[in-house]
């Protein structure tokens, strides 16, 4: 239905998007993914016929949608086959009454007046907005407006629906409403979706809730890959994430640094871990919560003996101190040429003034920072921390967690246990619960 041959849109500034060759069939749902500035919206607008009329630029290659060439035909003629919903619900709805807005595309396509009323009611019901039919658009919320815009885009039964960040300005319930409406579309409508809030869009179903096909663009608008969503995300996820794309929660931000399968550990006769499974990826911070005695510390101990050898920070930092001064504590085990790195770490954890003090004379928060700093200097790929914020005041806990977060952002895989749900959700990429010997 959509066929593109070396389609490339070149903007006056020299940027642009493409070239893309491919086809999209009836009923196919496609996600377009890429960092901001990659030209995702430009691509959608070109498909809607807005280049060069509305978007200054030049189009190369060939494009056809159901026999229409959008580039030649322009927006109005292309709209016979293509519906478009943009991100700003206020500018996407033109008239002051909902029913008029949805009827407008039908009037413009010369539907018989007696057919328009039933179709308006039908398409509004389809997007869950039947109750809005006689309302004034000025009174509607963003989520309601966006559903009205969707109804107007669908009214004339387009073959293709283009969605340019339709949920950008909506709250969670608005996102769910728009998503339900899109999922309930007639089976033959093809959908091309540009969306940042992939987790919200996917909802409970995770990756399976996303369009099955993805076209990934790099920061210059070149096509990285056009293929099954899971495969594209697996191959290009880290790169896209590094360029600032939001990716679904399930997509690893980096390669798996540690993989645990079917881990069983017993304390005496009591089984603590029963078939536990865990993947730790570079670049992510995972928080594990659970009741006392659930086996969090047991899990950390068990992971600490694995390969590659992780760095481990214990609950009580004093248990790990080996040197007489703070500086020597940091330098312990490092090669002789590492003095610069030690000084840098002293500054980073705010202990430069205490460099010659005994580690035991530091405050509780400083001790925690020192033990984490010492571990970070070894550059381990996996870092484990047992209750790193435990017993600290708020400021010290924040500094400690930020240090670990920075380590994750620099590429390490960080796993920590915590009792503090608020902190866990604030800092970690994933929060897992240890219950009955497995992670949930």
């Amino acid at each position, binding site marked *: 239905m959509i066929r593109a041959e070396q389609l490339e849109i070149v903007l006056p500034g020299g940027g642009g998007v493409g070239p893309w060759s491919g086809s999209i069939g009836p009923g196919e749902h496609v996600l377009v993914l890429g960092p901001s500035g990659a030209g995702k919206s430009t691509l959608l607008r070109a498909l809607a016929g807005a280049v060069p009329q509305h978007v200054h630029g030049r189009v190369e290659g060939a494009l056809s949608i159901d026999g229409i060439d959008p580039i030649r035909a322009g927006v109005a003629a292309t709209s016979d086959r293509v519906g478009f919903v943009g991100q700003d619900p206020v500018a996407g*709805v*033109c008239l*002051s009454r909902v029913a008029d807005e949805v009827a407008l595309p*039908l009037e413009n396509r010369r539907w018989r007046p007696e057919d328009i009323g039933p179709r308006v009611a039908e398409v509004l019901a389809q997007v869950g907005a039947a109750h809005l039919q006689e309302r004034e658009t000025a009174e509607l919320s963003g989520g309601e407006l966006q559903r009205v815009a969707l109804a107007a885009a669908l009214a004339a039964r387009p073959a293709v629906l283009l969605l340019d960040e339709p949920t950008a300005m909506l709250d969670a319930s608005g996102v769910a409403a728009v998503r339900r409406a899109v999922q309930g579309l007639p089976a033959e409508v093809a959908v091309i979706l540009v969306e940042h809030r992939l987790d919200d869009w996917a909802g409970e179903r995770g990756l399976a809730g996303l369009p099955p096909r993805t076209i990934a663009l790099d920061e210059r608008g070149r096509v990285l890959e056009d293929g099954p969503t899971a495969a594209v995300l697996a191959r290009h996820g880290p790169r896209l994430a590094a360029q600032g794309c939001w990716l679904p929660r399930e997509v690893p931000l980096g390669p798996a640094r540690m993989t645990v399968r079917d881990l069983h550990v017993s304390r005496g006769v009591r089984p603590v871990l029963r078939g536990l499974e865990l993947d730790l990826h570079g670049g992510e911070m995972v928080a594990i919560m659970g009741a006392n005695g659930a086996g969090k510390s047991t899990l950390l101990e068990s992971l600490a003996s694995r390969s590659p050898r992780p760095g481990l920070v214990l609950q009580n930092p004093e248990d790990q101190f080996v040197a007489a001064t703070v500086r020597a504590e940091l330098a312990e085990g490092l090669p002789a040429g590492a003095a610069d790195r030690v000084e840098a770490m002293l500054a980073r954890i705010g202990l430069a003034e205490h460099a010659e003090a005994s580690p035991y004379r530091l405050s509780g928060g400083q001790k925690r920072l020192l033990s984490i700093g010492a571990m970070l200097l070894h550059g381990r790929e996996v870092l484990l921390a047992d209750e790193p914020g435990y017993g600290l005041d708020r400021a010290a806990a924040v500094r400690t967690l930020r240090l670990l977060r920075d380590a994750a952002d620099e590429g390490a895989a960080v796993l920590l246990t915590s009792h503090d749900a608020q902190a866990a959700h604030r800092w970690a990429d994933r929060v897992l619960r240890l219950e009955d010997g497995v992670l949930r």
Partner: protein
Amino acid sequence: MRPAYLARRNPTVLLGLVLATSVVTLFLHDVPRLGALYALLLLAALAGARFPPRRLALAQIPFVLFAAGIVVVNALTRPAPEGLIIGVALGLRALAIGTASLILARAAEPRALMVSLVQHARLSPRIAYALMAGHRMLEHLPGRWRTITRAHLVRSGRERLSPRQLGRCAFALLVGSLRSGERLAFALESRGLTDGPRTVWRPVPLGRGDALLVAVCALVVAAVVAVPA
């Protein structure tokens, strides 16, 4: 409650009557006739368009000020007493035209006016719907202005904005409006709006009531013009 009598009439007809009445006043120069016309228009506003009297009085204020200006200028610059008479006549003319426009603004619903202009006065649908979309955008402007000035206030850290800062706010509003305008133009086109033939789902009726209204207005205005002063 049923809408007011004039609100049930075809808006294009109302617009035509307002224009016609305004043209007629251009040919009248005497105080009694213009005064009678103004009084009749006030009556039409109250009874025909169900203007609440207080609202009507408040809405008259700008026209009254304008008319007063005309009276003063003419009374001072022309020889007395003709200057005063001409001034009063011209002032009444301004009041009559102003009141006629007020009636139109109150009685004609914007959508009905535009749809009927497309149906009955061959206005281009592109222009009509662009005007309607623009009207909707206009309704958003006060809110946008509040948002922008509040944001600038927060950044300035002062109690009030200086004229310079207000200028910047206006610029931001202008840029934002241009952007919204572009998006609206795209949205309208993506609904398939062209100047080509189209159907109308809920047409605005044009009927015998409208013919009757035109006839009555013509008679009344003719009577005002014809009766010797």
